[in-house]
């Protein structure tokens, strides 16, 4: 099924689930059961199941459903948890509820953002050639070495000082480590264009052979910029997990505290 069609079907299913939950709450209220307690338990069970996704690395290689199936289940349960949260929680009051509320929103939002990133970014990286993040430092070092070798031949010559200066002041700092993370994260190529402009300016001062060298240096810089872009994308694809996973742990803990306080201070509501 194509993506948009799948999205439409999933949205419809979620709406149906929300309707079922609303109906269940209504029936519960009619039977003098507390809908808030029911939705709370529903939400807690979902949160626990969602958190178990983290154990998949130990079990998955040997038994059970595949990683794809588990992730899809995780996504659908997450969507359902958001629906349940909307039913269960109004505006928070007090420190505990506010913290709990914030943590849930953080986990849910980071999950949705992570899902969007994991769908959008790989295609961008694939389009320019995915080198695999483990190899990026090696490739970067090779580019830096190549640039140094290209410039070394010009050091002794009196008529290539502009090229040497280009390398010393602009290219070497650029090539020696990852650069321009924020620009890549915001899909801006301004730093690269500035560098290309500098190279074009220097080219005007050089002879044919020097211009050829300048072109090669520019190609190396462009390759390195591509590596920086890939590195930035990989970091972004992982960064959301540093919020999502710890926040989930804290959320689980506070859920238990919330559960204890609800039943500890309740007056016997079912």
């Amino acid at each position, binding site marked *: 099924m194509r*993506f948009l069609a799948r999205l439409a079907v999933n949205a419809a299913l979620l709406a149906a689930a929300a309707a079922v939950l609303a109906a269940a709450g209504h029936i519960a209220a009619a039977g003098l059961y507390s809908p808030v307690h029911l939705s709370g338990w529903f939400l807690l069970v979902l949160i626990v199941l969602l958190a178990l996704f983290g154990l998949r690395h130990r079990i998955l*290689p*040997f*038994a059970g459903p595949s*990683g*794809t199936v588990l992730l899809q289940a995780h996504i659908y349960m997450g969507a359902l948890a958001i629906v349940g949260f909307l039913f269960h929680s109004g505006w928070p009051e007090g420190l505990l509820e506010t913290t709990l509320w914030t943590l849930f929103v953080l986990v849910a939002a980071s999950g949705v953002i992570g899902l969007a990133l994991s769908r959008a970014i790989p295609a961008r990286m*694939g*389009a320019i050639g995915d080198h695999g993040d483990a190899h990026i430092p090696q490739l970067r070092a090779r580019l830096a070495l190549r640039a140094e070798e290209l410039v070394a031949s010009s050091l002794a010559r009196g008529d290539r000082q502009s090229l040497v200066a280009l390398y010393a002041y602009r290219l070497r700092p650029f090539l020696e480590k990852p650069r321009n993370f924020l620009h890549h994260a915001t899909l801006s190529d301004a730093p690269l264009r500035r560098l290309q402009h500098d190279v074009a300016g220097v080219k005007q001062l050089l002879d044919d052979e020097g211009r050829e060298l300048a072109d090669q240096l520019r190609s190396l810089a462009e390759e390195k910029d591509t590596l920086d872009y890939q590195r930035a994308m990989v970091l972004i*694809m992982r960064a959301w997990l540093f919020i999502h996973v710890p926040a989930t742990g804290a959320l689980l803990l506070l859920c238990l505290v919330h559960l204890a306080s609800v039943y500890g201070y309740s007056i016997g509501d079912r």
Partner: protein
Amino acid sequence: MSKLLEQIASYAPLSETQADACIDAVQMLREIVAQGEYTRASLRIILQKHAVVDRPVSGEVVLRKGAYGGDVYFRIAGELRIIVGAPDNFRLRGLYDAPKQVSDDAAGLLRRMAQAFKGLRPETRTIGDGDASPGAADLSGSRRLLLSKSDRELILAECETTILPEADSAIVGEQATLAAGARLATIYAERDSVLLRMNWRGVRILFKGSATFREELKRKNTSAKVITSILRGFPALAGLDPDVLAELAAASMLETHGDRDWGASPKAAGELPVVREGDHLNGLVLVSAGFGRVSRRFDAGEKTLGFLRRGDVFGVAEIKETLATDKPAVASRTLHMVNHLQLLIIPLPAVRKHLGADNLPEDTGTQEAAALDEASLLFPSSDVADYLISNRLINGKKAMVIDLNRCVNCDDCVRACAAVHGGNPRFVRAGPTYMNILTASACMHCTEPVCLTDCPTDAITRNEDSGNVLIDEAKCIGCGACAKLCPYDNIRLVEIRDEQGERVIKADSGVPVVKATKCDYCEGLPAGPACARACPHDALKRMDMADQSALTKVLSQNEV
């Protein structure tokens, strides 16, 4: 048969005198000595290292069709029957089905699962597990099927069988062994028999050193019987009348191009045209081994249309036209040999007489040149064949293909592989790419695995049932022969650690002990390869590289 031979136990290592007795009992070995190609002493050593006596009882299946071959059998005494042909729906207690793959046992599976929860140290061994001495042959007769009387009556009633004649039954199983491929037919003992069973390594030594042996194999492999069994491997021809098949076989010609041992330099033998576009086609061309590239001239170059592997056919459209119009058959495409190619050519008169236009096999390997418009010929999806051929990935039966449009570099696949393999992942998530396809550096369990050829201890073998290429850790001595031979760098040598995490050092040389490791396709795990199971984004698949439709699907999916 000599008294000494009668006393030799099945599968027991041979003593010097026992090996001598075997040489005297097998005509081929006597001839090799008589020709001076090997001395008796050296042949004795070969037998002691690489052969055992095998005593199948009446009804015991010696070779099973479809199983992967590793051993060759020299007949000493007894009688063997070969099932030449069976009806499509014939099933006899797993005779034609590979047994289900199970883990070692439930306890073994639980142990493997438990280690995923412990702190993992890669490649840890309890010292004293013991390496087998180099050269020891493990030729146990595991899992042999024994046919009952009623089984055999059923076979005789429903299948075409023949008793292997005296001369031909001198050697059996050599074709599959030399090609590291599947057995072509099932052979069982008609009565209690005595065979000399030699492993892959021994056969290769004889093959390289003895012209007599090579000539005999060539004679056998080009014999009508062998050609008949090759013809039966093509589904469109398998159902033909046995007499028709025999006539086709008698008329057919076997042609071999290139070098089967293309080893560590995958492009060394290169590509040479075998049939050129515009040449006269003198018959229907069937591919019986190796690989071929099919191309068509376009402007000043050759555009790849696809590739051919064992079981594919070339020239069907041209032959069909000839049969319809009586005009000479002219090749509309060029067929190139890629390293090694073996062709079986059925001459046109035989095709006309016995097959006709309606019974021709399908042209499975490539698209019909005439059906392609310019856009299809020139633009991206048709280049996937070029990518496969130029990187020699066409050999892969279980290659690891990653869709880069879905892969988020989460490393779940690597973690899963490490969890199953004691902390050492058996692949590297890098390799040649084409658009959004990356073929990772993981063993592809090739159609023709060149890595098997030079192992001194037979540590690397092909599983008889699954076809997976596996390394026996206990036998591996870390020589690196397989790693050097693998054209794709998919085998790595890793250092071994003791239980304290320290490297194990050889006492005599002071050098760390290393072993070869590679992807084993999670052999024995009921759930299959952990890498593919673990990927949460459906980016990683294990696939047969001949399945171009599957690759094309990966290229074109993710469309919104």
